[in-house]
């Protein structure tokens, strides 16, 4: 690959640069430091311009991992994560990661190569309509039609990706646009004006809160998106209100805060779901009445009036009518609410329920009990830890049993439910926060979706700590087949899994296996002490289920519980 002299990239707009050089300059101008990608034909001009730039490119082994790593990077930093791929299969491989970011409102800029402009629409080699394929899963998208437009396109893309409700933005770059030279000046900036809370509506909301006898704070991922944790914590402290969180909201309040009742919904705590059922006022902040949280919607919080506060106006009233809706900057809105309701009896009842229905960790037998392992691991790992999850039973166990003191410490594919998210997300998190203790909790189904990324860990010597909970099954599917399909187990057996410790070692990664409960403390110690990447292969009981569980389309108080 040819290298470019750095001075070429430092020229002002009076000298022509290639489109690819303009791309690199635009990324530098946006403060981008890391790009996750994989080269190929149509994107080669950009790869040709990378050397000599200030950008650090992270070569993954599959484009999906580039998008998922960029997603995690965006979640941790709050700045758009950037991924880069070629046309055709490179672009289609990004699609799952783009959709993942879209569903969870994560800032991302995805850059794809495209066949040269004259070939677009001719079924050329590695041509696919990336713009069209991604239309439903991006916040916005661009096709570069003139290299002189590149600075403005990139400035707009980053602004759109991070503003308001964040999301992924796609830039499709035809190969000839990367090669052609253009003179381009500085882009214009159009930042969104700040949103201020309306005083009259705030006063009405305050009055409603003051009158409430059983108010409940229900918060979600919008808190992290709006970086409104401080304001939420102040409100919770000021009012003493009990609270519940969605999967994405976990950590916005410390999960060990005394009035926090846990996650609500399908795998929520009984205390959270009962409080939601009983409350007379639901203050929803940065959440969207998602079906996993509400269960059967028309039975959700049946006695409650609703104050819905969100950064995205279109979420208010979408699924549940709100008596008061307030859209705008969450921090400003939460800070403006000053009511302090008299709710001692209600608060005591919720705390009592929390103690009464607290999770138990005294499972019988000598086998590893995943909830106990995860609880112990998160306590030892401390506040500096970031957990990234795959999808399945282990994902819910992490949400239920790990301790979080900030939402950026819990990276989970909540909306899309992407098996394979865990390791790429761990990679992204490590580049975003190199001093953090990053732990990926995965399953034997999920890890195989992106197991090739062990090579990326090895290449960059990333100290990711992988806990692989291996029940030799697709556990969540098996659980549903057991409970809702009359035990008709269909295509869930993974007992022919490879020896995962051997696989990890083949990638050059330290690994060991845990079979018994008494091995867990030493395993946690080894995981946390090891300075490089390490995988703990933990064999678990395939009959273990995630409890509690609300059956689909049922009221949240109809929870199934562990019976033995």
């Amino acid at each position: 690959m040819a290298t470019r002299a750095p001075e070429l990239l430092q020229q002002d707009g009076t000298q022509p640069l290639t489109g690819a050089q303009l791309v690199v300059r635009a990324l530098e101008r946006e403060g981008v430091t890391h790009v996750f990608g994989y080269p190929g034909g149509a994107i080669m001009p950009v790869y040709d311009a990378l050397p000599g730039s200030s950008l650090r490119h992270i070569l993954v082994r599959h484009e999906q991992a580039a998008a998922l790593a960029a997603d995690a990077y965006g979640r941790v930093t709050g700045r758009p994560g950037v991924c880069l791929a070629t046309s055709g299969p490179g672009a289609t491989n990004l699609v799952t990661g783009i959709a993942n970011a879209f569903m969870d409102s994560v800032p991302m800029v995805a850059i794809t190569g495209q066949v040269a402009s004259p070939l677009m629409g001719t079924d050329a080699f590695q041509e696919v309509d990336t713009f069209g394929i991604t239309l439903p899963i991006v916040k916005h998208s661009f096709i570069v039609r003139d290299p002189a437009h590149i600075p403005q396109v990139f400035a707009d893309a980053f602004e759109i990706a991070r503003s308001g409700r964040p999301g992924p933005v796609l830039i499709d770059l035809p190969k000839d646009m990367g090669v052609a030279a253009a003179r381009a000046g500085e882009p214009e900036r159009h930042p969104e004006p700040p949103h201020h809370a309306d005083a009259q509506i705030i006063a009405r909301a305050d009055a409603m809160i003051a009158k409430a006898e059983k108010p409940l704070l229900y918060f979600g991922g919008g808190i992290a998106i709006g970086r409104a944790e401080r304001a939420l914590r102040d409100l919770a402290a000021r009012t003493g209100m009990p609270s519940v969180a969605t999967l994405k909201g976990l950590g916005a309040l410390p999960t060990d805060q005394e009035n926090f009742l846990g996650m609500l919904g399908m795998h929520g705590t009984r205390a959270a779901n009962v409080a939601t059922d009983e409350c007379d006022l639901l203050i929803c902040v940065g959440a969207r009445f998602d079906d996993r949280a509400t269960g059967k919607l028309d039975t959700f919080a049946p006695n409650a009036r609703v104050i819905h506060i969100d950064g995205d106006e279109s979420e208010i009233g979408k699924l549940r009518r709100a008596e008061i809706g307030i859209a705008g900057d969450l921090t400003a809105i939460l800070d403006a609410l000053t009511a302090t309701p008299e709710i001692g009896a209600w608060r005591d009842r919720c705390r009592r329920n929390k103690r009464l229905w607290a999770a138990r960790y005294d499972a019988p037998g000598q086998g590893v009990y995943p909830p106990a392992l995860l609880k112990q691991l998160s306590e030892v790992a401390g506040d500096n830890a970031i957990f990234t999850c795959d999808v399945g039973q282990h994902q819910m166990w992490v949400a239920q049993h790990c301790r979080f003191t900030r939402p950026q410490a819990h990276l989970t594919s909540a909306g899309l439910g992407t098996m394979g998210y865990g390791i790429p997300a761990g990679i992204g998190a490590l580049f975003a926060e190199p001093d953090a203790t990053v732990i990926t909790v995965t399953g034997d189904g999920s890890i195989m979706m992106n197991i090739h990324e062990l090579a990326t860990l090895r290449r960059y010597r990333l100290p990711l700590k992988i806990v692989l909970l291996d029940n030799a099954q697709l556990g969540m599917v098996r659980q549903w087949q057991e409970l809702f399909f009359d035990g008709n187990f269909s295509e869930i057996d993974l007992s022919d899994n490879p020896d995962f410790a051997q696989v990890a070692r083949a990638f050059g990664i330290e690994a060991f296996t845990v079979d018994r409960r008494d091995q867990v403390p030493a395993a946690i110690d080894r995981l946390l002490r090891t300075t490089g990447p390490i995988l703990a292969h933990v064999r678990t009981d395939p009959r273990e289920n995630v409890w509690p569980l609300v059956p689909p389309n049922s009221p949240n108080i109809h929870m199934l519980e562990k019976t033995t």
Partner: protein
Amino acid sequence: MSLAMTMAAPRPLTDSGRITVAFAMREGAMLRVLGLVERRGFEVRGVTMAEHRGRASLAIDVRKRDPGRRLAVVAGQLRRLHDVEAVSVSEDEV
């Protein structure tokens, strides 16, 4: 800018209506608008468009695919699109 609002109780809806969208005529804008309307549970039954100096006005006649769909909700989602400048809905136009 203030975005506060008071939510009124939803009115009974017919199963058809018209969505009028004003937007900047940038690449993909019309596809984005129509695709969102379809994906969010409305059948597109007719389209009328006018364009002047890079600004378009698109009138979309729609029918709900199930009773749970509300024009006000899809209007809010259309307003989030980067190219969209204004959205209005009516339930009696078809």
